[in-house]
């Protein structure tokens, strides 16, 4: 299943969990392939399983069944140190609530994944973190501020820089603009778009059509299943072969 054309390949992935007495079929037999270096929008209403699917991509959760292969790694069967290493090096997360560490400055938040991954000295980490913050266009005077002293848009920029810290193959963004005004949200989407333009695979879970319009591939979900069609919003988009 290690196809260089695709960053990730899912085959009949199932993830159910209980919410009280109710069995939630968050991901229900999904199969898909994500083309490498594209921006993919996962679109659907709240509770349709978008976030769960992102979590499965990111090894934050394990599927009940099925296969998830990212860059040749069988993510669903990772355990212990391998799972941690995968999270460190293969994926970068951008959350709806930014989820920056409140006790660290913007710069330190970006340096943190590099420190966890190891292999770089403090000076190199700092230099790279500054470079990433510059890339996401955060003003330098914000580098030493803690998250509580940054605006929502600024926090999300820091979060994107943090997601890029270890040069992951896959960026997973879960409703990254949900807590931002439209202007700031647009800027964040532009940032993600540029990442894809730089040949990095970006998966954005969203229910915002304006974001979907900027994606190379749009995948619609409903009740844990992929809809029977895929949408091609960009004329140059690669096809994402979808089945459910």
């Amino acid at each position, binding site marked *: 299943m290690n196809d260089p054309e695709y960053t990730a390949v899912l085959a009949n992935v199932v993830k159910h969990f209980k919410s009280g007495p109710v069995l939630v079929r968050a991901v229900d037999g999904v199969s898909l392939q994500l083309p490498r270096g594209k921006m993919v929008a996962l679109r659907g209403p709240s509770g349709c399983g978008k976030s769960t699917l992102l979590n499965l991509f990111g090894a*934050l959760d394990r599927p009940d069944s099925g296969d998830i292969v990212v860059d040749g790694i069988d993510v669903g069967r990772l355990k212990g140190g391998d799972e941690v290493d995968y999270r460190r090096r293969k994926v970068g997360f951008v959350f709806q609530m930014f989820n920056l*560490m*409140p006790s660290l400055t913007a710069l330190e938040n970006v340096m943190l994944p590099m420190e*966890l991954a190891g292999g770089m000295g*403090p000076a190199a980490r700092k230099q790279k973190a500054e470079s990433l913050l510059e890339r996401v266009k955060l003003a330098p005077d914000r580098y030493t501020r803690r998250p509580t002293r940054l605006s929502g848009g600024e926090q999300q920029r820091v979060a994107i820089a943090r997601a890029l810290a270890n040069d992951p193959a896959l960026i997973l963004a879960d409703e990254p603009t949900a807590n931002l005004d439209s202007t700031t949200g647009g800027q964040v989407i532009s940032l993600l778009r540029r990442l894809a333009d730089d040949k990095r695979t970006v998966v954005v879970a969203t229910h915002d059509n304006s974001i979907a319009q900027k994606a190379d591939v749009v995948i619609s979900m409903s009740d844990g299943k992929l809809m029977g069609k895929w949408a091609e919003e960009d004329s140059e988009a690669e096809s994402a072969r979808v089945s459910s």
Partner: protein
Amino acid sequence: MTIFRWAWRALIRAPLRGSLLVGVLAVSIGLALIMITVDGAFAQRLDDIRASVGTDITVRPAGSFGGGVFGFGGPRGGNGPGGALATPTPAPSDADDDSQPTITDDDLQKLTSIPNVASITRVVTDVYQGDTITAGTVTPPGNGGQGGPTFRGPNGQGFSPPIIVTGTDDPNTLSSLATGDTEITSGRSFTTDDAGKNVAVIGQAIADANSLAGGDTFTLNNVSSDGTETGTTTTLTVIGIYSTGTTFGDNGIALPIETERTIFAHTDTVDQAIVKVNNVDNVDQVSNDVKNALGTDKADVTTAESAFTAISSPLSDAKSSSQVGLIAALVASAIIILFSIGIVARQRVREIGILKAIGASNWNVVSQLGIETAFIAIGAALVGAIATFPLAQLVADGLVSDPTTGTGGPATNVGGPGGGGGGFFVAGAGGAANGTNSLLGSVDVAVSPSVFAYALAIALGLALIATVIPAWYVGRVRPAEVLRYE
């Protein structure tokens, strides 16, 4: 950025929570440190007492056991083992009474051949009834020993206790007289050259009451074997004056044993003998050998160890209390920090989820929590250690002054005739110990800087314990679950 800075930042992010945690934990750790310090002081004091009691074995005529010289049990029958046990016992009126067993010089001679016997000191004591000198006045503070009614003067004021005359053949040092805390305030004690001479070391109360000083002379009426005065006197020269710190204890006269026997018409009997053993490990064996040599129907044999046990029991109790306190404080500390950090971990479950999502291992997260815990514990331990300095002595005093001691007290505690009172001067087991309160009343707690080492050890131990729950908890956190409902 190191994990230490990371942990420190997380800690100071909630200063109130951190301060409260440090404060509560400081109380527990401080209490533990105080108990460690106090326990050490008690142990040292017990060692001191053991050393002061030494390796002596007291041998008395059977049935005459007790009889602190200045206890009202009197020289020929007083209380139990001196100040330690104030149990009234029947007292023979006279050691030379034919109905009572006696111990003679010949008997004691047998003991010299027992292995590990270092020396044997003979002691005789008598109450002086004559009127050539007067006793100092004692004002009892209240009921004293438990052996009988308290002596008081006719008007409830002071009274003059009997003057106790002690003769011993080993007067080189005051310790040979078993006078414990007795201090020569003027002149000197005996030397071997004084044997058989008409010299005396007198108590301060006698000196004051009779205006005697070193070099002065006084006379004692000689007594016949039936206890009546012979009409002759012996003139004695004062070579030294001692003080025990109590008027009662200072109403005594010490003489070379030959001189005492001459005045009181004793032949070769003794009221007690102090058998000194060469090593504390041999005390029990020598004690048994002495019993076998003299026979239990002839002599009561008391080891220093038994006296030590009786004397030190209050201190041992206090030591036990301090150990219980130590354990309780440590358990309390462990529980406090365990649950506090457990709660902190739960409160920060989202943060843990984020950390794991961006690549932190369980070890990374647990390390951070562990270091945070260590910071808290070390801070608390420092506060606790500093608090130990002023508080340890107070706690020690409180534990030692526990009223459940059951001691008869030293000579100042005046029991009734035939009981109570404590031996002071040559009173064997009890007398040797010079009363319990004087031994127990001053446990000096010296807080050493090593308390900081203990504090650090406790802090690190607690930090280690406190990471158990977070480690278990962090291991169970699945990032997707804690981030699912954001």
